């Protein structure tokens, strides 16, 4: 999406009562929220998160690594909000019950939690991508 266009959109939001607007054009989605944060996200037109698939198909990771999968359909977010830091990075240690991401569906934010202690090894889905039921989200190595 062109910068000019984004500037137009920002102006539109500023001058109106709109608090938030999302426009999707030609595979790019732009969300503008008042507070002047602009987030440009590439939207995958094919539902399945393409990046995750090759990694797992090749299975070039150790046998003891486990997967956190999506229990529902939704949009994958790595952080609680647009301005805040992500829940986890690759290499982070997570505890059982710790939130690793959000799946948003129908305006509801669902926190996805780690089922056991471990270390996040791979993050398989891009921020803002849609995921389906059963889709692999994270690879982690369980703590001993």
């Amino acid at each position, binding site marked *: 999406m062109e910068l000019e266009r984004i500037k137009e959109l920002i102006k539109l939001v500023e001058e109106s009562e709109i608090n938030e607007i999302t426009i*999707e054009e030609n595979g790019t989605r732009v969300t503008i929220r008042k507070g002047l944060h602009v987030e440009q996200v590439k939207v995958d*037109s*094919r*539902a*399945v998160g393409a990046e995750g698939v090759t990694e797992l198909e090749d299975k070039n990771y150790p046998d003891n690594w486990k997967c956190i999968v999506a229990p*529902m*359909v*939704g*949009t994958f977010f790595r952080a609680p909000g647009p301005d805040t830091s992500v829940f986890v990075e690759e290499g982070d240690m997570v505890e059982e019950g710790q939130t690793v991401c959000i799946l948003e*569906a*129908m305006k509801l934010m669902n926190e996805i939690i780690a089922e056991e202690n471990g270390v996040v090894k791979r993050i398989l889905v891009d921020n803002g991508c*849609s995921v*389906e*039921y*059963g*889709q692999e989200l994270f690879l982690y190595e369980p703590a001993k």
Partner: protein
Amino acid sequence: MFEKILVANRGEIAVRVIRACKELGIGTVAVHSEADKNSLHSKLADEAFCIGPAQPEHSYLNVPQIISVAEVAGVDAIHPGYGFLAENPQFVEICESCNITFIGPPASVISQLGDKAAARQLVMNAGLPVLPGTENAVKNEQDALSVAKKVSYPVIVKASLGGGGRGMRVVRNSKELRQSLKTASNEARVSFGDTNVYLEKYVENARHVEFQILADKYKNVVHLGERDCSIQRRHQKLIEETPCSALSKRKRKEMGDVAVAIARAVDYENAGTVEFLLDQKGNYYFLEINTRIQVEHPVTEMVTGIDLIKEQIRLAAGESLDLKQGSVDMNGHAIEFRINAEDPKRNFLPQGGLVELFNPPGGPGVRVDSHIYSGYEVPSYYDSLLAKLIVWGRTREEAIMRSKRALGEFIIVGLATTIPFHLDILDNADFKRGHVFTEFVSQGILNNGAGGNGEQART
């Protein structure tokens, strides 16, 4: 017109809807359970989402998941197919509140007609013929017994929220009735969440004749002729054909007009089917209205040349019906055979499994609607329908010869199917004469392939 449609179904009907969308240049979104990962409908759609494990209540009936997909994929309409959520008024309302068009009648119409006892009463009050029976739902045991005595046995007990051949029991005396009232009520509670049942006189040797309706949002309604669905097993249709051999031109017009009048009376929209019972004397009685596209819709398509799924989509998008009753032309004869993964030799035992080879028939006047392909694993969680074979001929005789030819070419290796059973029926003397009725199967075709001189062997 819609840009993207989500098909909230599976199997052959999902494939059917996707085909219509592609022909209209509309984007398609499929949903599938984990068991349906390799299903044809998912492969054909532009986008596909897994929405849950195999069990229908966690996948194809999972409204939040389906709506989530509709949202992330940005669809503007949902086609529900038949079964699953097709006649669920709450689902329709949820779609409406999410600004997604539901391709079918409005929630209020589905709700009203989904109560079969109430729909019957509505038609009765409009002065249109219904079978003798209770006015609405059965009030209590005494009420049931006295009505049964009045209309005389046998009677049939039906669940008010049932329909589609489910939740029905035939009873022949007061003792059976007392017993059946309790079990039918209980079954109704479990299957439909409601214990209400109603009673109708049970007419033996009757035909099941239904009329296809199309209605736009501007009160224009037409009928596209009838389908004779009398060949059934346990109230499930096996073979459907059009036209019905027992209808004269005049009777057809009369029943068609009644079907349209009923649709008008309830402000019907989109596609629907008005079902009648036709007795041996030529009297017809309203049974129920199906507020969805039906499995057997292709037989109507073959004789009218009208694509019913495309019509559904157009009507839902707000287009007006450009058909006038006078311009609906019925040409030739069409027969549909439901090919199920059931073994006729083992009492129609349904069984999934790997289809090693699937080679459907071809040639003039032969259509196959199916989701099966060679190498496909048929899951055991859903219905047993593998394919619909629809055959057209200029006359019924030609359609029958062509059906035998087509069924003979139809190769399905790896599963037992009902193809041999259909071939037996085609050889039956009564069937060839067009002498069909709903007890056709139960009364002897299974044990006595040849049929004889019009006497059906009683089992």
